[in-house]
């Protein structure tokens, strides 16, 4: 039976400075509880929301990136429900039931070869955080931290167009990269992107899966849910329309609440936030829109002759794509792409490391140039790169001071080869008998030169050394 899977993705706009409706910091992390608050985000009597225009802009960028339409006028609604993490006991969000009013609707995105439709994208405020503390279940205390309350959040809702956990994974990875690429969110921050899923099997009730902490677990939870529902149907057990939660320890979904009618949120217009006329904002934004990952990937393969695999990795991460573009020349594209994807990405795998990196793109270009001219070996390049990232020293200085330049003086290499072979007299005969030993000797020579010797010249030197030995040996 075919599964139909839809997702609801909540993405914090972490790149913004302030919350959605007040001047408190959007980045609430690493702060003492209830210190990033003001009358507005605490919902104190008399306070009013003031819309953050940058949040609207960023949300529209997401809508554009997902091929959504945006209405001429945006409006906000109140979603009324009681919960301790909700300072006003309503959430300011967006709604399309009275006609399109959300930042985006009816979009579409290619996931592998499948089109996944985007129903809508809405801008809303994050609630606070509930923290349970206490020694045991019995004397549990419920604490609320409002630092997060009012943080700008975008909810992306898809149609149930995915069919497998694999589709879910690919879709989420695409979202992750896209949100980073357009500068909407730093997805690596804890809690920056959360997703819920709904799963149904042809003609049966829909089940929602909530409170899954990671994308990886969501994929597992969807897989589990498809299996559970399939089993139920095979055993003619009706599938309840319900919400289930992912139990991380047992790796199963469990029913969150019993069957109940839909909560009535008594939605109505938030009059404190005047309607926003978009005008030609979308056209303006579209002009300044960062190149999409897919376009960039295509350009890398088509124009720069980079392999599709390398282009995929390089294009999906804006930080590295930027370095690549600014250090690139018509000659160095492939070599540069390789060193970025194999060496530099390993050195700078976190955003923090990227921010701390002292590597300039011109210097990186110099390093790649030297490699291509064989003035430095791959091994030396790697070690120079480390130092450039860490200390910001210039490539030339490093080469000069630490002597990382390639040893390509023929007499020096011959000398080096001679000294290695002489140190292990048995080697010559082994090498004469088996080509494998030649590699072994090469390894020793490279090691002795600290990776600086030109490998091709070393190989030639060993060959000619062995040839001379062959000539010396009596014919048999």
């Amino acid at each position, binding site marked *: 039976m075919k599964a139909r899977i839809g997702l609801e993705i909540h993405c914090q706009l972490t790149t913004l400075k302030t919350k959605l409706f007040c001047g408190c910091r959007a980045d609430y992390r690493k702060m003492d509880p209830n210190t990033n608050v003001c*009358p507005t985000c*605490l*919902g*104190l*009597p*008399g*306070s*009013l*929301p*003031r*819309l953050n225009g940058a949040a609207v802009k960023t949300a529209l960028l997401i809508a554009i990136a997902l091929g959504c339409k945006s209405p001429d006028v945006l409006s906000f609604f*109140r979603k*009324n429900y*009681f919960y*301790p993490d909700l*300072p*006003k*006991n*309503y959430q300011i969000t967006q709604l399309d039931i009275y006609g399109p009013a959300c930042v985006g609707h009816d979009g579409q995105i290619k996931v592998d070869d499948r089109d996944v439709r985007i129903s809508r994208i809405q801008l809303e405020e994050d609630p606070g955080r509930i923290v349970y503390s206490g020694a045991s279940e019995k004397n549990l205390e419920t604490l609320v931290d409002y630092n997060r309350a009012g943080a700008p959040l975008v909810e992306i809702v898809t149609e149930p167009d995915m069919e497998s956990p694999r589709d879910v994974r690919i879709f989420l990875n695409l979202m992750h990269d896209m949100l980073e690429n357009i500068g909407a969110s730093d997805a690596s921050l804890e809690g920056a992107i959360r997703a819920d899923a709904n799963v149904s099997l042809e003609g049966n009730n829909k089940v929602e899966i909530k409170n899954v902490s990671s994308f990886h677990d969501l994929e597992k939870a969807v897989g589990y849910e498809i299996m559970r529902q399939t089993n139920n149907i095979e055993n003619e057990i009706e599938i309840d329309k319900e919400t289930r939660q992912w139990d991380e320890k047992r790796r199963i979904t469990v029913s969150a609440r019993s069957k109940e009618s*839909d909560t*009535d949120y*008594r*939605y*109505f*217009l938030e*009059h*404190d*936030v*005047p*309607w926003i006329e978009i005008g030609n904002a979308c056209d303006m934004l579209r002009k300044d829109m960062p190149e999409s990952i897919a376009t960039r990937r295509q350009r890398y393969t088509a124009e720069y002759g980079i392999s599709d695999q390398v282009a995929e990795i390089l294009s999906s991460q804006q930080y590295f794509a930027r370095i690549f573009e600014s250090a690139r020349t018509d000659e160095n594209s492939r070599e540069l792409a390789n060193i970025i994807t194999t060496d530099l990405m390993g050195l700078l795998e976190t955003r923090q490391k990227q921010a701390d990196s002292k590597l300039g793109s011109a210097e990186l270009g110099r390093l790649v140039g030297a490699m291509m001219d064989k003035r430095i070996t791959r091994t030396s390049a790697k070690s120079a790169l480390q130092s450039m990232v860490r200390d910001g020293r210039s490539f030339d200085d490093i080469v000069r001071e630490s002597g990382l330049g390639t040893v390509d003086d023929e007499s020096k290499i011959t000398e080096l080869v001679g000294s290695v072979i002489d140190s292990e007299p048995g080697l010559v005969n082994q090498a004469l008998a088996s080509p494998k030993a030649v590699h072994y000797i090469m390894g020793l020579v490279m090691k002795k030169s600290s990776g600086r010797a030109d490998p091709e010249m070393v190989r030639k030197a060993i060959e000619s050394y062995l040839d001379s030995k062959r000539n010396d040996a009596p014919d048999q």
Partner: protein
Amino acid sequence: MSTDLGITLAEYVRGVASGEISCEEYVVATLDRIEKHDAKLHAYVSVDADAVEAAKGVDAAVRAGRDVGALAGAPFGIKDNICMAGTRTTCCSWMLEDYVSPYDATVVDRLSGSGGIVVGKTNMDEFAMGLTTEFAAFGPSLNPWNTECVPGGSSGGSAVAVSALECIASLGSDTGGSVRNPASFCGIVGYKPTYGRLSRYGLVSYANSIEQVGIMARSVEDVGIVMNAISGEDKMDDTTRRDVRSGADHTPDHIADIDGGVEGMAVGLDVDSFDESTDVGSAVRRAADAFEAAGATVTDVHIDHGPSSVASYYVLTAAEAGSNLARYDNLRYGYDMPQEGYEYNAYISRARSRLGPEVTRRMILGGFVPSAGHAGKYYLKALKMRDALSAQVDGVFADGNLACILSPTVPVLPFKFGEKIDDPVELFRMDSNTVLANLTGRPSISVPFAMSSGLPIGVQLTGSLDSDAQLLRIANTIHASSESKGAPQL
């Protein structure tokens, strides 16, 4: 003490500037009067004795030749649903009995910035729901003209304070007539500006799409002076932003043309809003005559005040109240009530059961009218009614090229305590003339015009959007012909 407390704000400001009036003496005399009469009248729920220190500062500044601002140390009463840093803002509800706001409302901030001195917070119906102050949790205010009568509401305390000379002017809030109704019952001027003219930042929300801060004073010019000091765009309230509205000038001078008269202007007489055989109705007719005498043309107009406009008003305000008051869940503010042993929702229900009867009534209504399955029949229908009413009023204004519409503020004279409190529907009807301006966002003002059986009668003028300065000019003209003069004898 010979200080004449009955002067207008305009007279007071001139007197202070010229050194003829001592701010300290005036404020001390005001506080003395509060001390003497307010135990009975109950206009105030809290009084700030520090006001005297501020007044001394104003006198010193005058002596030193420094600017004392447009309000020059004038003593104001502020409705207790408008926040002032460091003082209690109770909304006259037990729920906020001990709530102290950490910030100033923009209107308070601007009032102080122009030299105004707040002498106290004034009484009101709980959370501004009511029109008699009988729903004030800490007891009602009394009408100074006849203490057996209600002073009107919900800004009853603000009206009583101005009328009884316990302050020179006051701020209230007007959701369905809550400034104009008590102004009419207490014989003073009460003004609700165009929606968005005064910042609502710091006004505790009840029905946020409808309500405005309002100004109460002894003359129309006084209202203009206060408007000049506190109106205009506020970055803390997006609904005051010019670009989202008509683009009209948001800070016009409200007093420059105030004596310009009404020569050649067209006034629409809302003939379906009154019965000429009543004292109130005949007063309105005389006001129309006064307009004609002043050179305006008066034409009869018809506006549908049918039950649907009041019904739509109550549906919308209840829906918004249900949401705006949801935050009073007794977790962050409220009364002492242990949480042990309650499930979350059960606790909130129990805590909220201590809200007063009118608030409870509107919360229940507010939970119902926008709910799934009922929104179409009530909430959405009310929204349509509101749009239809707006269109209808626009049409009436356009057809007659009207400068304003004239009607009674309240259809009846001030009535006795207890007379109508048990009949909420009858009470709702008292709003039938005033809600129009709230539902359509228009500016509207009640001017004391006549007296009957020792009780004041106010007439109401409603203008078109953003015509506030012109409306004050028209109101000033009619106030000059007012048959009602002076303050009540206490």
